């Protein structure tokens, strides 16, 4: 009996199905607000898909292709920090279990 190992988040997402809208991110961040309010750090840890990561200088990188479209980041983001909407028609994650 092998103990279940969740693995890393990127490993898990590799098993999901996505239709990536290449070059067309559905997420935009105001880096200045992110740094000033600490909102950047917040969404880095709150996003279950690890879409957001923080560089040394505090800049937030966005791996929009990994997005599971829950909207949590938008719900907790300080005002004005994030522009977020669902990906365009047919784009984004396709749950096969749900």
């Amino acid at each position: 009996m092998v103990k279940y190992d969740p693995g890393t988040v990127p490993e898990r997402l590799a098993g999901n199905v996505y239709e990536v809208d290449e070059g067309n991110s559905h997420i935009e961040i105001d880096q200045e607000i992110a740094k000033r309010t600490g909102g950047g750090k917040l969404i880095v840890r709150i996003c279950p898909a690890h879409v957001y990561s923080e560089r040394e200088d505090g800049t937030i990188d966005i791996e929009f292709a990994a997005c599971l479209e829950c909207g949590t980041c938008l719900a907790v983001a300080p005002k004005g920090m994030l522009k977020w909407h669902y990906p365009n028609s047919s784009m984004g994650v396709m749950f096969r279990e749900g």
Partner: protein
Amino acid sequence: MTEFDFDVIVVGGGVAGSTCAYLLGKEGYEVLLIERGVEPGSKNLSGGVFYCQVMQQIFADFLESAPVERKITRNTLCFLNETSAVSVDYWDQRLQEPTNAVTVLRAKLDPWLAEKCEEVGVTLMPGIKVDELVLEDGKVVGVRSDEDVLRAKVVVAADGVNSFLAQYAGLREKPEKSHLGLGVKSVIRIGEEQIRARFNTVEDQGVAYAIVGDCTKGLPGGGFLYTNKDSVSIGVVVMLEDLSKSEKVSSQVHDHFLTHPFIAPFLADGELLEYGCHLVAEGGEVMQQDLVHDGLVLIGDAAGFTLNTGFTVRGMDLAAGSAQAAAQAIIAALQAEDYSKAQLNKYVENYQNTFVGKDMHTYRKAPAFLEHNHEMYGEMGKFLADTLYGIYNLDLTARKSLVATAWAALRKSNLRIRQLIRIGYQAVRSL
């Protein structure tokens, strides 16, 4: 005279949207069901236990032909601590006939619902995202997707917990952080044989676990573990505001639960089928604001129709119930040719007269109870485990009486009698 493309446009092919479209289509109305996923279900995620008697009412053959996973005949409530668990395990043959709860996987269920819609003449438009509602003179007259505008007498916003359409149109406030929970879930295949062996179940019966405590590392919320045909749905729901204020990482809370020593054996040799997440409305009755406007009604998660009573976690049944109430009101509006807020408000009257509104009202204090009694997420479970440990750890020293054992456990914990009384009192009033 403006032309309409459809009588009704339903945005969102989830349980609420599909059920509403179905009921309207059945009456012969021209209905469009738009869904942004390539297939209905591809954007939906539930725990998911579906209290399905409402569906049997709407679709005569629901249990026989819908792709449901297992019939839940056993419910286990569990206080989980770091190295112990105290549960109430309830199995009842009466839950078999009639079946009142089934587990479902949305990517399988929703396509079936969409098919039922098409059978009654609903036009299905998957893979199309509605960008916004179209308003004229403050009345909703249709929807826009990219350059295309489609007009209808009534629009039904069944667009999920984020309820963006109503928000963008300035008709509804963004949901408050304190009214939302974040669900993080894994579907893990362990095989039919192991499901039966590990969960001690037979044929197509199944188990639903509702867990509190260490599963969310003490944060308000809970863990769930449900049996599907050959897989389990397992995950956590954490209240968003508390999660934000803590320093915790959402994926780590999920991982901590799945690797907990009490839980891990259920998942051994398991294969991850899918990892996903979704927001859950947790505000209760207070979220049922601004559900009706000229030409528009909100149903399902978009209207905040989910209910966590601690024992049961409900959303899909309320979605279907709200869809019934809305369909009835919309049919009356179409017959009267009056799509005003005043006319469509019958929807609210309708749902308030059924289990949907009544249960939301009965349990209106549940969100506050579950939010404020933090002892439920740590101290309570430890107290129970320590009491039972005092009873079962026969270490050659003399045993105390039951009451003395419990009292010792209570003194060891951070709980005080008045807290227990407060919890008991509030539980009785709220649940």
